[in-house]
């Protein structure tokens, strides 16, 4: 077999191993089973300030939001890096000047909805913020 093909196959194998290692060590630590969480949505300019208490088995915030999509009217825009939250409660953020800032128990979220684990008792806030 061509030497280059062999080298490429080996590098692909190393990359697959790299993905596996990443998911093992850095993947979101999720919690299985029934959980009760709070979703708080704030759009100050529209006078929207809603709080939902939700019981769910979902492990990631994105899946939870899809589960209650009709209730919270969640809209996402699929980007290269994953889903981006663009709308809630019928309000679409003007992406040229604002976005949905996500807080978990009052602290700024460090990752997006697709990587945020749903933990029992947590409060997830979505606040339209200008930049």
């Amino acid at each position, binding site marked *: 077999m061509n030497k280059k093909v062999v*080298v*490429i196959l080996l590098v*692909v194998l190393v*990359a697959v191993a790299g993905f596996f290692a990443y998911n093992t060590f*850095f993947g979101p630590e999720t919690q299985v089973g029934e959980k009760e969480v709070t979703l708080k949505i704030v759009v100050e300019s529209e006078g929207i300030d809603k709080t939902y208490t939700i019981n769910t088995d979902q492990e990631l915030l994105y899946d939870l939001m899809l589960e209650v999509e009709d209730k919270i009217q969640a809209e996402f825009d699929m980007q*290269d*890096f994953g889903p981006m939250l663009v709308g809630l409660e019928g309000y679409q953020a003007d992406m040229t000047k604002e976005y949905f800032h996500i807080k978990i128990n009052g602290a700024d979220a460090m990752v997006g909805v697709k990587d945020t684990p749903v933990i029992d008792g947590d409060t997830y806030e979505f606040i339209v913020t200008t930049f």
Partner: protein
Amino acid sequence: MRAKDITQIAILSASLTAGKLVLSVVPNVEIVTFLLITFTVLFGFRKAMITTLIFVTTDVLLYGLGTWNLGYYFVWPLLIIITHLLFKISQSEYVFASLAGAFGLCFGFLFAVVESIFYGVEYGVVYWIRGIPFDIIHGLSNFIIVLILFKPLIKTIKLANEKMNIL
């Protein structure tokens, strides 16, 4: 600098921007690394460096000024410098493919360093770790692209040079 050099740099910069735009639909697969390595090898350090700076500035004009393209002013010239130094030691496509692969793997880290300056080290660490899967794809695709295309492109441009004296 002669008119020929200025024209060459303009064409090389345009090819970088065009190459980037063409592959922008595929996340983290790009030919800019491959082209920059090839340009450094063929056209030399000085021309490759000027080409890079024009390419990055064109990016600013196209997409606006942000921390990400400030990072480009740091990472792409770094690639030129490393390629230039490596070229003195080896001319093997395996060496350049490995450089391209390593560069792709470290791309997120290099940007995380720049992001840390603006948003703090904690943000930089999260930025880097969350981007590792993209860096793996970037490194892998860079390696394959350079390994397959490096020699044929060098050969083609050298052949064209024999007929048209473009170098």
